[in-house]
């Protein structure tokens, strides 16, 4: 009974906050509701037994997305009056309702299928070099996905750069924010590093840690304690690339000398995964924070 109460509350909150984010009269309120949606979603991940996701969602979904959206809102010169017209909404509802029936008809039978992949993952776990199954999937069994994901992050950053400087205006920092961020940023970096180390045997890993690092960087930038990141400095470019480069080097090395593309020798797997994760956490942190706060135009 108590479980149903929790599930029902979380589910209704999710739908209510999502509807509010779309339809709230002021855009400012919509963005706030969307951030709250991210936090409730993090709770839902924890409820559904996915603590890795809860960690990542709390940092990314609620924190960084919120900063991104508010920065975009500040860049809009005059917030467009929410002229919610009735006709397009009605038309959209007419499209969505029949889709709902089709979707549920398709989804519900998939609940009854029993997947055999979890067993196969569990049986190969001892050879993977780590003891946490999610990390094993991310960095060993499906390392290809993670490699391409780092490439996607880099492509998004390059695409954003093509559009010119982001004009991320930092207002005069507020003394309380400065004092707090001096305290919070080291804690965030410490927690991020701990998550990275913990990822080999428990929930955590490069993505969660990288998101926390990025949050620390954004916080310090907002408090005016960090000098603007400049694309022209080569250490920054190296940090942005190092995750992908090291991953590619390992992939090429295993293809050339070892058993094949990205199949690590079992004795080395743990060390290789830790090295890749350490490089990836730096790249993820700096790419995300550059995407969020942009870089200073040269000059």
């Amino acid at each position, binding site marked *: 009974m108590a479980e149903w109460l929790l599930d029902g509350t979380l589910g209704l909150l999710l739908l209510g906050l999502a509807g509010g984010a779309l339809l709230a009269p002021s855009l400012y309120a919509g963005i706030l509701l969307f951030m709250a949606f991210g936090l409730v979603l993090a709770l839902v*991940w924890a409820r559904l037994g996915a603590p890795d*996701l809860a960690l990542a969602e709390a940092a990314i979904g609620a924190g960084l997305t919120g900063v991104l959206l508010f920065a*975009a809102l500040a860049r809009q010169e005059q917030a467009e009056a929410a002229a919610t017209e009735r006709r397009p909404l009605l038309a959209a509802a007419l499209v*969505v309702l029949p889709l709902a029936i089709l979707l549920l008809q398709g*989804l519900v039978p998939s609940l009854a299928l029993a997947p055999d992949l979890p067993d196969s993952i569990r049986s190969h776990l001892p050879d993977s070099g780590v003891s946490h199954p*999610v990390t094993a999937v991310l960095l060993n069994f499906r390392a290809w996905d993670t490699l391409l994901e780092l490439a996607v992050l880099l492509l*998004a950053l390059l695409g954003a750069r093509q*559009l010119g400087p982001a004009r991320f205006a930092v207002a005069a920092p507020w003394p309380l924010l400065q004092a707090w961020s001096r305290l919070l940023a080291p804690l965030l970096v410490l927690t991020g590093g701990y998550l990275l180390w913990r990822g080999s045997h428990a929930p955590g890993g490069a*993505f969660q840690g990288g998101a926390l690092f990025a949050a620390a960087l954004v916080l310090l930038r907002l408090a005016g304690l960090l000098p603007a990141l400049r694309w022209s400095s080569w250490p920054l470019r190296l940090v942005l690339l190092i995750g992908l480069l090291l991953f590619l080097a390992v992939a090429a090395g295993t293809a050339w000398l070892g058993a094949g593309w990205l199949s690590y020798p079992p004795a080395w797997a743990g060390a290789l995964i830790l090295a890749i994760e350490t490089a990836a956490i730096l790249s993820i942190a700096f790419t995300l924070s550059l995407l969020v706060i942009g870089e200073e135009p040269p000059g």
Partner: protein
Amino acid sequence: MSATLFYLGIGAALWLLGLFGLLGLRDTLRRIIAVNLMGSGVFLVLIALAARVTPTDPLLQALVVTGLVVAISATALALRLGGAARGRRGG
């Protein structure tokens, strides 16, 4: 099993709500929020499916961890594109 079914339904509803917003709303920022809601709906369906076995299916969880990071980078790029388009229109 019933909690799984419940969250599967919520995930599908979120996806549809996002689609509704994407089709029916005009403002760029709201449309980007709507696409994000659609993404969250897909993630919720995946994780609900991951929770149908105990212990939870790690493959689907790993896919969603990847998806979260891709979603925020896509959002950042979309917001920049939206800003550039607004600048072009001269608003």
